């Protein structure tokens, strides 16, 4: 039984949210199993390039509406277009990424199409064509399985819960242009301007944190400037170490944390302290660099989803709580790690 799938490509001024490709990848996977085409929905202004990229990520067909009226994000006209496309194309399943825009559009479309939304899905089962979605609720303490009795079924995927396909630049497909019959006067909102997000990730909200401990000051290969006394030399070395931590954080869009030992030694300000005293954090990914992992630091970060420990000492307690451990000097590991991640994230 063929299932017709539609994957909405969420973007900002033509730059896709990476999780849109995860949705497209899922659509392709389901198509492969159940038969059918993988169709992407691209709406915006000057988004032809985005349509091409959709082919690279696995779309066979792109439904495209390219029109100045769709340039900036206004949910109402975009939802109208999605509903129009859905009524024409009649998908069984519409997939959105759970971005700020994806969530909104999914909700509105469900109202118009008299269906329901399964939000923030982390796993999907489509055996025998019956779709069951799994999603976390109550802050992840419980997992719910959901089904939808109406069509189209509409789901939003949690970011990074599904694999991003590897793009194949040689792929192409067919573009179907949608008529845009929206009356500009009928849209109740207009965008006055955009504002840059100010940089700097706060520890509280960060989904990735890179922390430094006492080890930041212990690079044996560093020679501090001759005019510094012992204390200043130690702090100088620590600053170099924290620069490496910051480098990794920058590539990952992460916040920088520190152990109490590092803060007490004045390597970094108290604002960055993670631990029993200091902040309690629960990011998706936590790098502990040169941190021994004593219980008071753990108290601040042990509910992180994935902990990566980098420490010279193979017996450091942190290795008992880390998902991944690298035994080695953080000063030799962080530079190649930062580079490798930079490459991966750019691609």
């Amino acid at each position: 039984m063929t299932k017709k799938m539609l994957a909405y490509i969420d973007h900002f001024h033509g730059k896709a949210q990476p999780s849109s490709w995860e949705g497209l990848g899922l659509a392709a996977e389901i198509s492969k199993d159940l038969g059918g085409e993988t169709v992407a929905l691209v709406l915006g202004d000057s988004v032809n390039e985005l349509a091409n990229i959709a082919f690279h990520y696995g779309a066979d067909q792109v439904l495209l509406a390219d029109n100045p009226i769709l340039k900036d994000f206004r949910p109402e006209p975009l939802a109208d277009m999605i509903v129009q496309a859905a009524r024409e194309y009649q998908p069984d399943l519409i997939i959105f990424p759970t971005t700020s825009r994806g969530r909104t559009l999914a909700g509105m479309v469900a109202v118009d199409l008299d269906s329901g939304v399964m939000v923030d899905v982390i796993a999907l089962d489509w055996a025998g064509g019956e779709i069951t979605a799994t999603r976390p609720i109550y802050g992840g303490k419980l997992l719910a399985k959901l089904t939808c009795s109406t069509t189209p079924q509409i789901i939003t995927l949690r970011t990074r819960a599904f694999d991003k396909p590897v793009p194949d630049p040689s792929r192409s497909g067919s573009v179907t242009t949608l008529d845009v019959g929206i009356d500009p006067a009928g849209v109740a909102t207009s965008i006055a301007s955009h504002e840059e997000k100010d940089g700097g990730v706060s520890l509280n909200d960060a989904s990735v944190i890179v922390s430094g401990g006492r080890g930041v000051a212990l690079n044996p290969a560093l020679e501090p400037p001759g005019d510094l006394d012992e204390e200043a030399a130690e702090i100088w070395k620590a600053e170099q170490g924290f620069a490496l931590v910051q480098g990794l954080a920058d590539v990952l869009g992460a916040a920088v944390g520190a152990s109490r030992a590092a803060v007490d030694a004045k390597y970094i300000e108290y604002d960055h302290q993670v631990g029993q005293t200091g902040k309690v954090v629960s990011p998706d990914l936590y790098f502990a660099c040169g941190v021994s992992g004593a219980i008071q630091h753990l108290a601040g970060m042990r509910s992180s989803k994935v902990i990566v420990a980098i420490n010279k000492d193979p017996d450091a307690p942190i290795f008992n709580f880390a998902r991944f451990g690298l035994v080695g000097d953080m000063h030799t590991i962080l530079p190649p790690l930062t580079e490798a991640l930079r490459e991966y994230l750019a691609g």
Partner: protein
Amino acid sequence: MRKEGNSVKIIVCVKQVPDTAATMTVDNGAISWGDAPLIINPWDEFAVEAALKLATEQGGEVIALCLGKEGETEAIKHALAMGADSAVMVSDPALKGADNVAASKVLAAAIQKIGDTDLVLFGQQSVDTDTGLLPVQTARLLKWPSLTLVSKFESVNPEDGKIRVLRSMEEAGQVVDSALPAVVSVTKDYGDPRYPSFMGIRKASKAEFPTWSLADLGIDTPASSISWPDVAETVQKEIVTEIIEGETPDQKAKSLVEKLIAEKVL
């Protein structure tokens, strides 16, 4: 009843949820939070705060609207104690298991019954079922513009029927002009909500407010498409520590990146 000048009539939709520190369990398929108290959805406090500030600045009234189980009045009482002028509870046994679209239909009907509203505010999501869908679906049903993730109200002008807000997206903030009435969801960035005052607490504990059923709203039980055939407690996985091998730091680094990709945290 037309209001004076730029005064603004605001409905704030509030919900009660179990305390976020509660241990959640599933007993025979039923979700349980033990004897943890029910509280106002923490995100809703920001919406109540925004409503109160606007009503203070330009005159007006704030009405707390809650869809919930009969007798579960924590959210409403908290909103009243913060300073909301009045409240309406909507409750009906037929709404057990209602999905988001159904709930939005009920809220839309209640908002229309209250009438003459300039602005409907929501918290950006709820800590229990966490969908963030009610604000946009309610807006769609009312055919009012939806402005989600608002952190700032630049101007609210009911006389001219206009509003300007700053809302968030992943990449940038967006300054949006919209017609009124509109439905807005408010983020944490709006600013810290006030605590209930003691006078407010006293008033709230004595406050009376109507409870409307579906019959009072004049609508039939809306259909729900979404079902929950299974809920289970999340099993804490045992941490399986993997020491990354490699001859050189470079190799270890590359190997780690691969592992992180497979672990789906990048």
